[in-house]
């Protein structure tokens, strides 16, 4: 069924990581990313990987499933390894005609690769264990300090959640319009790229029109239900830190201290 498409890559199992507060997870990702950029030694990377593996273990998401997420960055990975490997100057390790590999180049390339892999895996862990709704809620809370700069954080969060709600509806509509156009003889299977792109115009136009109409209807419905602005609203399920969240925070803190100590050495 087309409406069963899940947005994002949420992996639906129960685990300690799934039940954590989204704010905590967002903060943890932020702290972890910063810490990884400060790591300079292999020991540091080892500790970071240990922490990552521990989190993956807690998440109950199969490690294969997570690693599959690296597929999309394989090209980026190779590019950075290639550039660092061949274009870093230093002591020569190996040379063949104009290919020159240096000790420093190898060192930088390996570290860069480790850094990228660790970063991607850790941040994908966030989207794997947090539903998009929780995520918007967490962003709403976490970024609320931006309100001082008159940035409408709550409005943006509400916009995100409305967009998420309408994605399946619009997908269904695209499906309907596509079938309607096919029945009138539009071909979407043409080999010619230009013709193929042109075939999508009769889909885009009606979908835009209908999306605008829907948003007008929704705006009226929201206003009818007393919506004025999203700042002065109460919540049905306000986010509240639990014991496990504090535990997670202290664990994160221990990790951070270790990393700082390792970097000092």
């Amino acid at each position, binding site marked *: 069924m087309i*409406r069963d498409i899940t947005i994002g890559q949420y992996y639906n199992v129960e685990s300690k990581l799934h039940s954590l507060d989204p704010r905590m997870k967002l903060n943890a990702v932020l702290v972890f990313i910063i810490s990884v950029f400060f790591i300079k030694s292999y020991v540091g990377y080892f500790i970071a990987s240990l922490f990552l593996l521990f989190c993956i273990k807690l998440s109950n998401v199969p490690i294969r499933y997570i690693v599959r997420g690296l597929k999309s960055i394989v090209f980026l990975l190779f590019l950075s390894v290639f550039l660092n490997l061949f274009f870093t100057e230093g002591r020569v390790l190996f040379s063949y005609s104009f290919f020159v590999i240096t000790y420093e180049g190898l060192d930088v390339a390996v570290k860069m690769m480790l850094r990228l892999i660790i970063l991607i895996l850790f941040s994908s862990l966030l989207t794997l264990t947090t539903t*998009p*709704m929780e995520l918007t809620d967490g962003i709403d809370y976490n970024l609320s300090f931006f309100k001082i700069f008159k940035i409408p954080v709550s409005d943006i969060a509400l916009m995100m*959640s*409305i967009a*998420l*709600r309408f994605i*399946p*509806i619009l997908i269904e509509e695209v499906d309907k319009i596509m079938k309607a156009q096919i029945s009138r003889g539009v071909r979407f299977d043409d080999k010619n790229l230009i013709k193929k792109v042109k075939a999508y115009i009769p889909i885009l136009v009606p979908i835009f029109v209908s999306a605008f109409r*829907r948003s007008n*209807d*929704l705006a*009226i*419905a*929201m*206003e*009818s*239900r*007393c*919506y*004025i602005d999203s700042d*002065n*609203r*109460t*919540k*049905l*399920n*306000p986010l509240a830190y639990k014991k496990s969240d504090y535990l997670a925070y202290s664990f994160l803190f221990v990790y951070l201290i270790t990393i700082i100590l390792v970097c000092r050495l």
Partner: protein
Amino acid sequence: MDNSLNSQENIIEINNLNFSINIFDDDENIKNEIILKDINLSVKKGEFLCLIGRNGSGKSTLAKILNGINLPTSGTVKVMSISTTDEKKIIDIRKNLGIVFQNPDNQIVSSIVEEEIAFGLENIQVETSEMRKRVDYVLKYMGLYKYKKQSPNKLSGGQKQKLALASVVAMLPQIIVLDEPTAMLDPKARKEFIDLIIKLNREKNITIILITHFMEEVIFADRVVLLDKGEIKKIATPKEIFTDSILEKYGMTFPFPIRVKNKLNQFGYNINNNVITTDDLIYAL
């Protein structure tokens, strides 16, 4: 029924309402189009009112005028003695006058059923504990409790429309306006929905204004208002309006039992004019 209502206060009062909009015609000139003309109507607390009329007769516009989404061009509209032009008090009107629109998909904001019901309550800043109580109560009352953690996208059309109604009911309104709520439902879901509206009207004494194309739904109303081209053509009880030829003049059809009765009378039977529902008809036969 009418007499007992007379003693009660008017919850909605519309005086000399006119509403027009400026539109561009084919030659790009601004043209003033009159949508509603000289509307005078008062609705009593606890009343079940039906608004009928052809497409483009101004029914939906009237609904949006009642809660101040559209403001009258001239004339006054007062809901619970508050004028809809009073910007400071418009929230008080919207708190007490909920609208359910035609397409459930376009009025559901949240991705979770219980959050959807809470949306209006969050807007009027109801305390979290009170909100939880109301949401659970309304979910049970509407028979949606088992879906409370689900996504509205997984509900059927009838359930979605019930959810839209539920989220209005949760705000404890005095009046509910329903703008062709059953237009997109199948016959079974339509009947269930109408039964729910009648239940709300009788049990909770909520004033109902139902805009509809289905004459079978009109039968349950206390009064019927017939609109055509922005003007009120007739205000009457369902009985009166179904014995009048005015309905067909303005493009409406009679409900099935009435049609059968009229045909039978044409063939020389003498069936009582009080026949409105199928049961009445069977009894009369």
